[in-house]
């Protein structure tokens, strides 16, 4: 059954070879024949911080692939009520013989379908032009490959900071090479500021690399606001960086609740919640990299079984109030003058507040709710939805103290949890039963944290004239609750 004029839903994204200068991408609408030209560029000069003297050409292909995925996903919009749009991506690469291999191609398309809900088709042509300048500059002196180092993604968010801070403290001899895309100017600046603050605290143990992707001449095209491929793009570029630093692992620091990102209510279906850092996405990117480079490669999240508050434990112990407040979590930062940039009422801001409260770290972040002028729209929308999920978790974890019964109830309400355990427990180096138990513990902790902070957090969402009083009261209440734990 071919439905809804399949032809109307097809696009072809034709890329010129990606050079140092902006390159042309043609977006062809197959139904109308309309062709739009956009310019895209990648600034990969920071990849000079590598250990290999010669830049591996297959890694240059990984970078180009990431740019092509990012561009194609941003320039096409998938309506969940309609059949999948088909994207054909034509990209010149240095190794079409590797990228066109059917197993690799299939893996790539399946991974992108899982993350974006679009049907992807790739055609990799042989690149005739010489590579970008970074590929052609051999290193005169490379850094020490024997140094104990971990490469991790650096978003400038609270999870990235909390995870890194914890790792820095747990492994005093280790260095950390951070990778950020920083395509947005504000994000770029914030990543740098938090990095400098950390560098001051942990001298000679940190390095930062940023590879921004930028569009040009694209204002005439509507962009996909919910670019669900973002996580994969970020991980591919981070994996390239990790490889160039001589490693075969990339680390992503994300709390388990956010990574698994279960639906709040049953009305949230599929990609209403992103799979950017979902354990199956990490597994998929690792497998894809393994196929590409011909060596075992992994993407690991050491905090999969931690709540956000648990991740913040080290920050809280050292009372790193100012440092943590430099980060941003907001899903839709505001740009209005005299208003704080973070909204305080989207799910990411709410989880941030919840984690601050539960970890007993003073929150000095300025939010629109409660510090600015609240918008006309319903500011309780996300809070109510998150609380509905907490209520569902509580109900399904309660019926028994037997873990087997708890898992049965939990997986009946959230059947996707079975897939996560079945498919990733080996990657986590634990048995299936151990992973189930870890997840039960994770959700139990999350519910307990909410039980403690819910009354005070909810107070911020009551419309009151004197919002500062509300914040003060809530902090006091939270403290009392936690001291009684």
């Amino acid at each position, binding site marked *: *059954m*071919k*439905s809804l004029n*399949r032809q109307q839903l097809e696009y072809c994204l034709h890329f010129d070879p990606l050079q140092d200068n902006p390159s042309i991408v043609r977006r062809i609408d197959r139904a109308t024949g309309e062709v739009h030209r956009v310019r895209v560029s990648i600034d990969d000069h920071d990849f000079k911080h590598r250990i290999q003297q010669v830049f591996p050409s297959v890694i240059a292909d990984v970078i180009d692939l990431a740019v092509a995925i990012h561009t194609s996903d941003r320039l096409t919009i*998938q309506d*969940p*009520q*309609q*059949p*999948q749009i088909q994207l054909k991506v034509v990209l010149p690469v240095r190794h079409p013989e590797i990228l066109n291999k059917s197993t690799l191609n299939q893996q790539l398309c*399946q991974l992108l*379908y899982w993350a974006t*809900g679009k049907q992807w088709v790739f055609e990799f042509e042989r690149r005739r032009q010489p590579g970008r300048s970074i590929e052609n500059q051999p290193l005169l002196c490379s850094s020490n490959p024997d140094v104990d180092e971990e490469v991790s993604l650096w978003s400038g968010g609270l999870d990235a900071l909390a995870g890194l801070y914890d790792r820095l403290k747990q492994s005093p001899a280790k260095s950390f090479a951070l990778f950020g895309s920083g395509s947005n100017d504000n994000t770029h600046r914030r990543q740098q500021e938090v990095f400098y603050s950390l560098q001051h605290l942990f001298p000679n143990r940190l390095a930062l690399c940023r590879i921004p992707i930028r569009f040009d001449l694209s204002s005439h095209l509507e962009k996909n606001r*919910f*670019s*669900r491929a*973002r*996580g994969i793009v970020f991980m591919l570029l981070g994996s390239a960086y990790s490889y160039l630093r001589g490693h075969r692992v990339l680390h992503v620091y*994300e709390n388990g*609740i*956010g*990574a698994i*990102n279960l639906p*709040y*209510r*049953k*009305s*949230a*279906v*599929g*990609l*209403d*919640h*992103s799979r*950017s*850092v979902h354990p199956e996405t990490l597994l998929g990117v690792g497998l894809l990299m393994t196929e590409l480079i011909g060596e075992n490669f992994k993407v690991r999240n050491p905090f999969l079984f931690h709540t956000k508050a648990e991740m913040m434990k080290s920050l809280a112990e050292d009372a790193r109030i100012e440092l943590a407040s430099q980060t941003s979590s907001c*899903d*839709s930062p505001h740009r209005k003058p005299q208003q704080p940039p973070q909204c305080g009422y*989207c*799910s*990411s801001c709410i*989880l941030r507040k919840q984690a601050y409260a539960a970890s007993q770290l003073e929150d000095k972040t300025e939010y629109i709710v409660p510090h600015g002028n609240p918008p006309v729209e*319903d500011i*309780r*929308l*996300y809070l*109510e*939805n998150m609380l*509905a999920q907490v209520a569902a978790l509580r109900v399904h974890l309660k019926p028994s103290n037997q873990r087997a019964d708890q898992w*049965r109830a939990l*997986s*009946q309400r959230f*059947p*996707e949890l*079975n*897939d996560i355990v*079945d*498919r990733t427990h080996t990657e986590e180096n634990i048995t*299936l039963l151990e992973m189930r138990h870890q997840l039960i513990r994770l959700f139990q902790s999350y519910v307990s944290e909410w039980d403690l902070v819910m009354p005070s957090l909810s107070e911020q969402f009551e419309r009151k004239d004197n919002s500062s009083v509300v914040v003060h009261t809530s902090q006091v209440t939270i403290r009392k609750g936690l001291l009684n734990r």
Partner: protein
Amino acid sequence: MPDGDMVHRHLGHFYQKTYKILCEGVLATEDCARDLLSRLGRDLKQTAKWPLHLSKKISDLLSQKIGPLEFANNDEAARSGHQIDDLINLADCPNREKELISRASKTVLNELRHGGEMDTCNFQLAIFKQYIREKYEADFKERIPLSREHHNGVSHGELMRRLEALEPYLNFGIHQFAQTAIKNQNLDNLRLPRQVRREINLDEDLLAG
């Protein structure tokens, strides 16, 4: 959460009338349930063609592994989960319906995995019934706004109680929809359950306020 979540702010236009009827509380429970089922049936006719087709394919897949011990084996259950995904991914239908039939199939698989009793000769009925339930919950029950007060001043708790009261009728209606669709292999003749005729009470004072 990472990259932002989409949260549905309002109930879809299709179910607005049912919502108002429930809030106003004028109709008897059975009549409310019939109105809801009637809308659900119309919704299914528009959207459930592929899910019906997929439920058959998934049922055939599970039927090949008929022994209950096979589902208790975690490796086999994991393999079945992958095979279900592969079947669904190939279908040319909207993502939302794919996700709902996936949820339904995985719920049935989970039941089997934990030794739940099920008619192993008719997995399709179990899967398609679960799909209809998922659809009802995704589009109506769990899409009702979480506001404290609803239309006509009804509290959220009261509205949920009224919804719970519909459950026996809904279960019966959903079962009947699924049976009819599977028997006909299409969704053209989904009929509402026969209405129970109320006995006439000859002593009832029809003029009383």
